């Protein structure tokens, strides 16, 4: 199972959703943001090396992190050296080995965002309740539709009590999982850990468990 976490706009919390969903699913999270990697990197071969043919995808998966991860390099030179189309076979190889894969997609509508959607059979749309992020998510939904990646859920980050969740659901055409703003979520993300390990009783932790049940 490959689940792509996409959204169109940057800064809406795709990486946090990817990390926490992967933790809840016991999946491998793949940081596919080739130019602006956001998840922990550590040491060893990364996705840039895999796409450049210098490392095996399975070899690049790190199991000693809080969440199993195939990290991405930080250099533009590394991003340029690889063949972006190899992401498809990479994701499939990791899925064959680990069964469950969550892909943190880059922002935008270029091929680096489309190829993980192409490889994944399903996706999540991540957005925030604002007038820029939601239209970007609509465009990403159209892209996912063309690429046959069914939209399983919409994750609405920074949701508040007054957020018109039903309107977001109608606009994006999928059930919405609201994740409220929570400082512990940000702190856990900065430490490369899921909120489940930091605050398992928090609302975001519960929502991510619900999301994993729906996806898994």
């Amino acid at each position, binding site marked *: 199972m490959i689940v792509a976490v996409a959204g169109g706009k940057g800064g809406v919390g795709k990486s946090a959703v990817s990390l926490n969903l992967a933790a809840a699913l016991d999946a491998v999270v793949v940081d596919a943001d080739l130019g602006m990697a956001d998840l922990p990197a550590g040491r060893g071969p990364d996705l840039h090396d895999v796409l450049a043919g210098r490392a095996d995808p399975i070899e690049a998966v790190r199991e000693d992190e809080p969440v199993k991860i195939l990290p991405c390099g930080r250099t533009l030179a590394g991003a340029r050296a690889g063949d972006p189309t190899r992401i*498809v076979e990479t994701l499939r190889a990791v899925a064959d080995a680990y069964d469950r894969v969550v892909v943190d997609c880059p922002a935008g509508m270029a091929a680096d965002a489309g190829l993980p959607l192409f490889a994944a059979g399903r996706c999540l749309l991540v957005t925030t309740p604002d007038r820029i992020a939601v239209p970007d998510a609509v465009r990403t939904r159209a892209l996912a539709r063309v690429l046959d990646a069914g939209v399983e859920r919409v994750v609405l980050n920074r949701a508040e009590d007054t957020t018109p969740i039903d309107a977001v659901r109608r606009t994006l055409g999928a059930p919405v999982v609201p994740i409220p703003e929570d400082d512990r979520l940000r702190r856990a993300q900065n430490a490369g850990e899921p909120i489940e390990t930091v605050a398992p009783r928090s609302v975001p932790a519960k929502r991510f468990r619900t999301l994993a049940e729906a996806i898994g």
Partner: protein
Amino acid sequence: MPPLLRSTGLSYSCEGIVRGFKYHTAASRTMVELEWRTASRGTVSFVAATLDNRRSQTGVDAHEVHADVRIDGELWPPCVDGHPAPEWDDDALQVTVPVGSTRGIGAAGRGTFGSPPIEIVHVEPAEGGRSTPDSVDVLRALGDPTPPREAIPIPRGESTTVPATEDRPGNGEDTHGDGSGWDVHSQERSAGDPSKQLTPGESENTDRERSTGELSRIAARDGKRNRSRAPAPVERWLGAVEQRLDRATRAERAADREHLARVRKRSEELLDSLNSSIEPTEPAMQR
């Protein structure tokens, strides 16, 4: 496999998998698996299915799968621009699934789906080989995301920052292949002693300019502004620059306003002066 009932956000759902659908020819074997899931809300039902063509060994690139949807009411196939998707013809669909890949399908309807809700009736080699896009087609259609050559910093020689290869296992060769060795992440680790990051003769400003250019290009890409990976000193420097720019902008606006006010005042004075010089002459002209 019997349907598996389980609770979801919808009123109920069930799922299942049909394995072992086989299509034999003299020299090859096709096996397309159908995995499906249904759900309902009120009087509306939904079906989502995956056609899995990863087990076929037929020597062709793709198969065309003909399937029927079983529902005891009205079926609503997916629409593109307000019209049913081209693969659909009433309750029948014909989709091409490349060998070695999967294809998702789904629909909604008013009524109850059968079990299985989708039935594969026929599989055949796709005419003209693969008709669905592959990863290269996606790349071609959406645009190559590879950073342009101009975005890659100029190699700085051996005494540059901690090389990117430090993260790599092995002998420290430049596994990135271009010898640049420029790495934001590495800079962060070595930021404590800026002097060690500079090639002899290279000014700190040059380094900053490169860093700023690099980060600006990153920030500009897709409108995504995320500087969380910049080294702390660079972050502070960028913040200070932004403040200066902001102050400068505000100062410029204030100066502009002041200048405009002066121009306006001078214009009014000239106009008054002109009017006062005209007024005494008018009676004379009338005479």
